[in-house]
């Protein structure tokens, strides 16, 4: 009996060394970050930094692949089966759909990381041609006849939804919260839109590279990037009197990460966005950092804007989405192709 037990123990020990070798070998891990449209440069820099950090910490080599597109479209792609280990989208509603439609994340996903899982924020500004030939200073200028406005499609783009809501909020403020007037205002805005791209980066391409339009309603970081990449002698940034606080959230896509065995590295990846290095990278790419020390360091880079929040004006994303962007919502009534 004793010999049998000893033999069995030896066999188990032997088998366990096959599965858990005494000397651990470095692993190669690949994760996929499915992100919204304008974050290419941000995540190019961030991924390199995280890979270096992770290798130094664990010895493992991590390769982060990235996919970029309109936030709503990206969310739908993940729900339809795109194996995203992490999702870094433009707005919380799109991430909520990963739970509502796919049960890919827990319901309380937003509580898992600081600042409602938004490591950086942004807002909406105007990018105009050098010299601002159409004299665009505020929202009421973009609805004037003869002004060509570039903005992406709110049905697919998160940035476009922020644009729309910022315009609506301005109209409410200047019309005693009259919803009908706000609808009329935003209707006029979209009448001035000659072409709708699917995402923010596409809209930037339309305005900057194709030379279409007088004003681009842009993510703040996109506007700064366009200026930086193509020269300040070509474009100007105009800060409207009122804009919206955009809080792009991030989450691990638990079902995928657990299936692929990448949950730990995916969590670490997102947590690294909140570190000093992660926040520096965000700031250098013109995203407003949430870490106070870094925010203070870069505060001169970002203009001061009167920001409203989606919760204050629209009652939250779920309500805003249902009212404005769902099929048959206000946008469908306003915009006729």
């Amino acid at each position, binding site marked *: 009996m004793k010999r049998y037990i000893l033999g069995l123990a030896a066999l188990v020990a032997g088998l366990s060394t096959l599965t858990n070798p005494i000397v651990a070998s470095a692993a190669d891990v690949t994760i996929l970050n499915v992100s919204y449209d304008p974050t290419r440069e941000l995540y190019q820099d961030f991924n390199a930094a995280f890979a270096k950090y992770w290798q130094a910490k664990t010895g493992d080599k991590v390769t982060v692949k990235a996919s970029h597109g309109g936030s709503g479209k990206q969310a739908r792609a993940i729900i339809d089966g795109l194996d995203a280990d992490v999702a870094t989208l433009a707005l919380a509603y799109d991430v909520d759909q990963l739970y509502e439609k796919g049960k890919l994340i827990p319901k309380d996903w937003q509580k898992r990381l600081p600042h409602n899982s938004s490591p950086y924020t942004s807002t909406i500004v105007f990018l105009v041609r050098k010299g601002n030939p159409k004299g665009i200073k505020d929202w009421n200028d973009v609805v004037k006849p003869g002004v*060509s406005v570039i903005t992406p499609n709110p049905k697919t783009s998160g940035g476009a939804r922020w644009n729309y809501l910022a315009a609506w909020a301005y109209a409410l403020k200047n019309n005693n919260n009259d919803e009908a007037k706000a609808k009329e205002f935003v209707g006029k805005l979209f009448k001035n839109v*000659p*072409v709708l*791209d*699917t995402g923010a980066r*596409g809209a930037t391409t*339309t305005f900057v590279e*194709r*030379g*279409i*339009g007088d004003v681009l309603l842009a993510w703040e970081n996109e506007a700064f990037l366009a200026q930086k990449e193509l020269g300040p002698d070509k474009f100007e940034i105009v800060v409207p009197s009122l804009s919206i606080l955009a809080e792009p959230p991030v989450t691990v896509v638990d079902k995928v990460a657990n299936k692929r065995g990448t949950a730990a590295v995916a969590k670490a990846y997102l947590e690294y966005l909140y570190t000093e290095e992660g926040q520096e990278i965000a700031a250098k790419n013109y995203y407003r950092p949430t870490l106070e020390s870094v925010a203070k360091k870069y505060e001169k880079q970002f203009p001061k804007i009167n920001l409203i929040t989606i919760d204050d004006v629209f009652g939250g994303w779920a309500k805003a989405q249902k009212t404005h962007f769902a099929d048959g919502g206000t946008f469908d009534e306003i915009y006729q192709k």
Partner: protein
Amino acid sequence: MKFKLKTITSALVTGGILLGSHSAFANDSDELEKLRALVQDLDQKIRVLDRKNELAEEAAAAKKKETPILNASEKGFGFKSADGNFEIKLKGVVQADGRYFESGQNTVTQAASGASTAGYLTSEDANTGSLLRRVRPTIEGTVFDKYDFRFTEEFGEDKVTSNSGIVDAYIDARFDPSFKLRVGKFKPFVGLERLQSAADIKFIERSYVTNALLPNRDLGAAIHGDLFEGKLNYSLGIYNGVADGGDIKTSADVNKDKDYSARLFATPFKNDDTPLAGLGFGLAATYGDVSGQVKDTVNGSTSELTSGYKSEGQQTIFKYIDGTVLRSGLGGTASNVVGTPSVSGVASDPGADWLAKADGRRYRFAPQASYYYGPFGVLAEYARVSEQVGVGRTSANTVTLNHEAWEIGASYLVTGEDASFKGVKPKQNFDFNKGTWGAWELAARYSELNLDDDTFVFGTSSGAIAGNSVTKAQATALNTTKHWLYADPKTSVKSAHTWTTGINWYLNPEVKFSLNYLYTTFDGGGGPETSTGTPRAGTGTLVSNNSASLTSNAKAKDREDEKAIFVRAQIAF
């Protein structure tokens, strides 16, 4: 005064000219501005149109990546997902045959009389005439990139011999090119000619190797794969076990014993730049240990012992002693000849005690080879089955019988296409208007079947046991009456030798016409040399003076030579 007037007038006129010029200039500027604005406006509109086109193209390209691909071409019909991971194909084979027998065909009257000069006619045997040899629609496909499935139903003549019309129904999991798992009903990985698709065989009917000795379809599971860059194919399988390649029937397994198969097939020069690139050779084997039930059904057998071998003309030329043979060999109706034991109570009824059965081990051994070089192709195969066969309800008379068959067939595409194991793609499809004639192929084959001499033993079997409705006297009579134990050489051949020549015309990759001339000679199986009376000597008379009877060891004459012309029109996609 005059000067002053002149000066003033000049001044006034000059002033007027200047004023006029300035006004004209101001109008030109306005026009220019308007033109500039118009040009800018037009420029923007053109840019917008270009951008919309660009976005539409991007959307179309993105949609194309998700849009299923519909296929209707010479490769078949079907559709698959944009990423190729899911696919379904509709395929099919229809073969319409015509058969003309110059000599050697069975006739109904011969079977009814029992005094057959050409063996027994079964319901599956066909005369001169036409038939739908195969009508097989197939649904096959892939799910999740690696899991293939195939379902084929038979609606043609083959169905007659089959309990169920299902030919193939299996799943093939391609975990890796070197490791695949197939489960269901399929061709066991044994015979080379059998593994060739019915649409691609060079002759209208396969050889004795395939149609007699090696299995056709079986129910089971096999692992298989390709090693060494596809130069070595292997397979290992476990199946319910079937007796032969005669038909696609697979009935329920009557015992817990299984058949095992193994096969290796090498193409060592594959993809090399050498005339030997098309050479392939291999070896297959099967092993089973069966103890089948007595062949006590009226018409056929259990799956453990062949229900009969056929000539290339598709006529039954060999049968072990089953209910049909017993009835014809002794005369009488089914109810008083076949029973376990007799149900009629007729004293001389041998019943189940004289029926042959599989009783023990069965081995098969099949070396095989093929060679293709340019338009020339050869396929050669040998098969040997060693099986233990018994009589009656005990194992007292069990013997080991070794049957063998071999064949060698050659083909040549006179129109110059490359020969291969899989079909022929004409260089130019047949088009009468264009004067192109498809592909033409000549083929010739020799095939031979040899039954073990010990199959034809005339003696007594000690299998009858008294009890139930068999009295002691009846059992004694059964055990002491000499008869052909396993097969009767007067009605079953000892060997068959077939020459086949053929022409194949491939109109296009999917339509083929074939013409074969078959010439077969036989040893035995042609009835008694001298004939006295008929086996129908009454109701179940055990001992008879009839030379055609199962209890007569009259010498057998050779079955009439079978000379036939077969034609086939085939569509396969």
